[in-house]
């Protein structure tokens, strides 16, 4: 093949680079809309505040000494959670132990709203 006019090669190359970068930026904007939507959906779906709420109240309940009161309170919490948040929130006590400074008991949390299940156990310390 006979050589054509090949003088504008740098111009052609720059043209390609510019168009590829415009293409890339367009892609970023395109994705950002989707990201905003899916993030907020994921955040709404995950019962973060409900779990925090159950967690906060659990330490208050298990600091009470009287067993009967504790049972009444955990039952009330379970019922309220079922009727108002459509979720199972079960609190129970595990082992207790103590050292020279603290008494501590294990608090077990079970939370499930059908989509997210969450289980946790933590040690609740009370100063002796």
């Amino acid at each position, binding site marked *: 093949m006979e050589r054509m006019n090949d003088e504008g090669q740098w111009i052609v190359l720059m043209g390609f680079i510019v168009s590829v970068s415009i293409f890339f930026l367009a892609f970023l904007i395109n994705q950002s809309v989707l990201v905003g939507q899916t993030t907020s959906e994921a955040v709404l779906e995950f019962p973060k*505040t409900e779990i925090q*709420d159950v967690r906060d109240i659990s330490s208050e309940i298990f600091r009470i000494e009287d067993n009967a009161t504790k049972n009444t309170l955990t039952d009330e919490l379970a019922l309220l959670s079922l*009727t*108002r*948040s459509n979720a199972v929130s079960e609190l129970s006590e595990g082992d207790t132990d103590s050292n020279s400074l603290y008494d501590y008991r294990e608090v077990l949390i079970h939370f499930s709203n059908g989509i997210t299940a969450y289980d946790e156990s933590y040690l609740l310390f009370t100063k002796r």
Partner: protein
Amino acid sequence: MVIPNDEAQLLTIEGLVAGLIMLTTAFFIVGTASVYTPADVHISDMQTEQLGFDALRVMSVPYSYGDESELEEIVSEIDLGGVNETTATLQFRESFSELISSGTGATTIVDSFNFSSSIYYVDSKEVLNKSLLYNAENYARRPSVSTGRYVLSEWDGSDSIVRFEVILWRE
């Protein structure tokens, strides 16, 4: 085989590539536009819900360790009924409104938030509710979000768990 007139092959390829790039860019740009429909309000609802939860959380933190929190106080005052109930109801309305519209302190945030709240409690294995009446109709409007918090407080003469719920919406 002899093909006549084959001088502009590079130009043809360039034209094709340029066309492709323009098409894909146009495709992305058109795809970027999103129409905000009523089904998408959950994006802003998420922020409202978080705001409500945060405000309730702030209100249920006592000022100093071992004290009763403001929300606990309000709940037990409402349980007493009468004048105590009216005062506590107004106190809640004031504190909560202040929390959801707090700016720098020097500016007033003009917003159309409104809310109505009620307390859910258990009475002989049944969940009942008591509304905090600061407007006579105790209405709410859609779209609204529901936020709530469990409070351990004096209710019906003994320590109980109640759920303090607030429905938030924009007028």
